[in-house]
């Protein structure tokens, strides 16, 4: 019997590495197509946020409907530090992450005393408060007029001003984020998080400080969102408060649920589905309903969410991984054909 503790989880990097190589080769194929590159870049931003959210929602079993606020904190801090204070980009990203972690810590202490619907409402309220700050703190954020002139990202002397360059940067961040999250999940801390998700009473009974873990993972997910927000601000070079309103938080949640809350790759898969379907809808819907406004998107994703929750409660990632597993195991244990020479009845008598 295999009791080796190091083999509790599948730590093989083969699958992730293959995926990483494919993702890194894509821009060379679509080098001239900025539309495709920018679509993938958007997937990257959302993937970063949703990976953090997956840790919070999928593993620790807590909910947040206010993560757009942390995304916005990162974006505005980077914008302010680089455009207004003329400081290097990495300082903006770092300060954004620090502010997001401090805010999440201050908010998290009282908020995580709540559970279920009350927790969802409290985080929703927090998101609305921060959105109001973005809107009203005009001297810093520019209010509803937005924040203009954010410089392109420049890290250690390298400027990421084109889609082609930015693509590599964001996806390296995404993979680092997923890799870090994967290490957390496949550890003692990950088990503790999942136990909190399973039963708070039982987790407490075995000596897990549930409040500490809930708070730590909330702060970590806020940092993920903040870094994504900082990178986003540098990419689009213009931000306004509406980008970080309540609906954005809901979309993040939809991405996590569609992708699959119990899988660290679920965030990425959910983000990809959300962005691709969103783009597809923008193309298709006007052809069917000529005067349709942007609101159709939420209706569509609302329906999709319900369908996924009913038919795939573990999300699409689970179905995809199940499919891959089936294919690879079929490939490895290729069955011997009943009609092959070896299995014919005559062989038995040989």
């Amino acid at each position: 019997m295999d009791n080796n503790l190091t083999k509790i989880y599948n730590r093989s990097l083969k699958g992730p590495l293959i995926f990483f190589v494919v993702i890194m080769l894509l821009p060379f194929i679509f080098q001239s197509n900025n539309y495709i590159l920018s679509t993938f870049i958007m997937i990257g931003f959302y993937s970063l946020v949703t990976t953090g959210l997956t840790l919070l929602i999928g593993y620790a079993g807590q909910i947040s409907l206010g993560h757009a606020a942390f995304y916005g904190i990162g974006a505005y801090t980077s914008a302010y530090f680089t455009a207004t204070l003329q400081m290097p980009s990495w300082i903006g990203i770092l300060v954004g992450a620090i502010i997001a972690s401090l805010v999440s810590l201050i908010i998290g202490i009282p908020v995580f005393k709540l559970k279920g619907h009350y927790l969802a409402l409290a985080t929703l309220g927090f998101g609305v408060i921060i959105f109001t700050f973005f809107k009203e703190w005009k001297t810093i954020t520019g209010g509803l007029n937005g924040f203009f002139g954010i410089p392109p990202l420049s890290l250690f002397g390298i400027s990421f001003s084109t889609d082609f360059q930015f693509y590599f940067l964001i996806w390296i961040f995404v993979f680092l984020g997923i890799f870090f999250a994967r290490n957390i999940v496949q550890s003692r801390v990950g088990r503790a998080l999942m136990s909190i998700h399973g039963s708070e009473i039982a987790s407490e009974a075995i000596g897990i400080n549930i409040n500490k873990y809930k708070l730590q993972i909330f702060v970590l997910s806020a940092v993920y969102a903040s870094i994504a927000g900082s990178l986003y601000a540098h990419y689009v070079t213009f931000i306004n408060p509406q980008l970080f309103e309540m609906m954005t938080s809901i979309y993040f949640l939809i991405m996590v649920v569609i992708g699959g809350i119990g899988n660290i790759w679920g965030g990425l898969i959910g983000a990809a589905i959300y962005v691709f379907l969103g783009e597809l809808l923008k193309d298709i819907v006007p052809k069917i309903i000529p005067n349709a406004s942007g609101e159709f998107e939420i209706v569509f994703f609302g329906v999709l969410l319900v369908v996924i929750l009913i038919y795939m409660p573990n999300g699409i990632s689970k179905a995809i991984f199940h499919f891959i597993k089936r294919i690879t195991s079929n490939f490895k244990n290729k069955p011997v054909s009943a009609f092959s020479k070896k299995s014919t009845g005559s062989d038995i008598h040989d």
Partner: protein
Amino acid sequence: MLVVDNLHTYHGYLHVLKGIHFEIKQGEIFAMVGSNGAGKSTLLGTIAGIYKPRSGTIVFENEEISYGKVEKIVEKGICLVPERRQIFDDLSVKDNLLLGSYHRYKNDKKSVMEDFEQVLDFFPKLKTMLDRPGGLLSGGEQQMVAIGRGLMAKPKLMMLDEPSLGLAPLIVKDIMNILKQMKKTFGTTILLIEQNVKAALQIADHACVLDRGEIVIQGKASDLLEDEKIKDTYLGISKKERLKL
């Protein structure tokens, strides 16, 4: 080993434990019986640090733990196997067991590994289902995992909250035998809370009856098994029926 003195615990305004006093000696099985709402689970929760007492003291191995944090109390060697097993449905049996040693895992992986094997030797059935999600096990198997998870904490005192709840009579017998074996093999002191009074008193050394937050009878388990009041109230055998027999 454990001395609980004049313990009062409230749930909001509800006075649940009203001056509890009892003592458990090292290496014994102490059974606490009582009907629903007597305060049994609250008592275990208070000893484990999940609920804070309003007044009174809990002394474990000459150290007061009345207002200690749960994780510190677990580290001192007290573990709680909660009511209805509360095993983690989505986690594998292996993960469930390893979570029991959560507080030691970081610094003492080797010893955790040894304990893991020891627990599997104690529950050989679990060896065959290590990768199975906890939620897919039967009630009896889940109880084994819950007790195994408790053992992984290497407790000096294990508190079990109604381990027989919802289990078939034969399985209850198995679980009670497991507790007796556990005391013998690991030398674990056991505080057992049960509604199945007969089963609990049969394996216990000492016992008490908790009624509406107060201990009403206390003594040797064998004496309690013969107590008229207990026979009438908890074993469902009235004096009249006994005379008929």
